[in-house]
């Protein structure tokens, strides 16, 4: 009984991960410009992979589940930091090229705190 439930949960999580990853890839292909692309890539790709990793409950193997939890936590922690670093680099480059007002007005993160140089 519990085996069947875990297998169904695992299959559903794999399907969810595939769907979310498909949406991510479609968004990255479809959107133009760095900031929309980063928006699509940073959040949804992480969620797709975390869903696939959470499907490890379907394997009913302790070592696999423990490692999958570690990898999922690592992804949840590091992907926003990496996305912030990329966006920060793009914003600072636009600010150096065009000045603070132009960087804020065009496509910069409005209201974001100024990063220290």
């Amino acid at each position, binding site marked *: 009984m519990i085996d069947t439930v875990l297998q169904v949960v695992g299959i559903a999580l794999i399907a969810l991960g595939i769907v979310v990853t498909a949406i991510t890839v479609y968004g*990255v292909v479809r959107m133009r410009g760095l900031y929309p692309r980063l928006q699509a890539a940073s959040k949804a*790709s992480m969620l797709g992979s975390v869903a696939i990793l959470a*499907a490890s409950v379907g394997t009913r193997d302790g070592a696999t589940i423990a490692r999958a939890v570690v990898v999922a936590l*690592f992804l949840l922690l*590091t992907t926003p930091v990496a996305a912030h670093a990329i966006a920060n680099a793009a914003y600072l480059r636009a600010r150096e090229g065009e000045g603070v007002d132009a960087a804020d007005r065009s496509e910069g993160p409005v209201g974001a705190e100024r990063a220290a140089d």
Partner: protein
Amino acid sequence: MPEVVIVVALACVTAFLAVGALVLLRARDLLERIVALDLITVICVGLLALLSYLREVSYYLDAALALAALSFVATLAAARSDRGGGPFR
């Protein structure tokens, strides 16, 4: 889990990986390339997890963890070096 599901999922994720490679090749900017590479590594982590479920060995997830850590450090270093600075500003 039944093998059919995992094999189909592997095929889908491999197709996404190919699309990600196309995005990487078509990117015009350095930062867009970094975004595409980040996306490709996160998809690779999912691919390794599916491979681990298929073969029922857990150590593919160690490789996934190492790949995620390397990707994180590489993304940070590339984003910092875009402005001409070192890794520690």
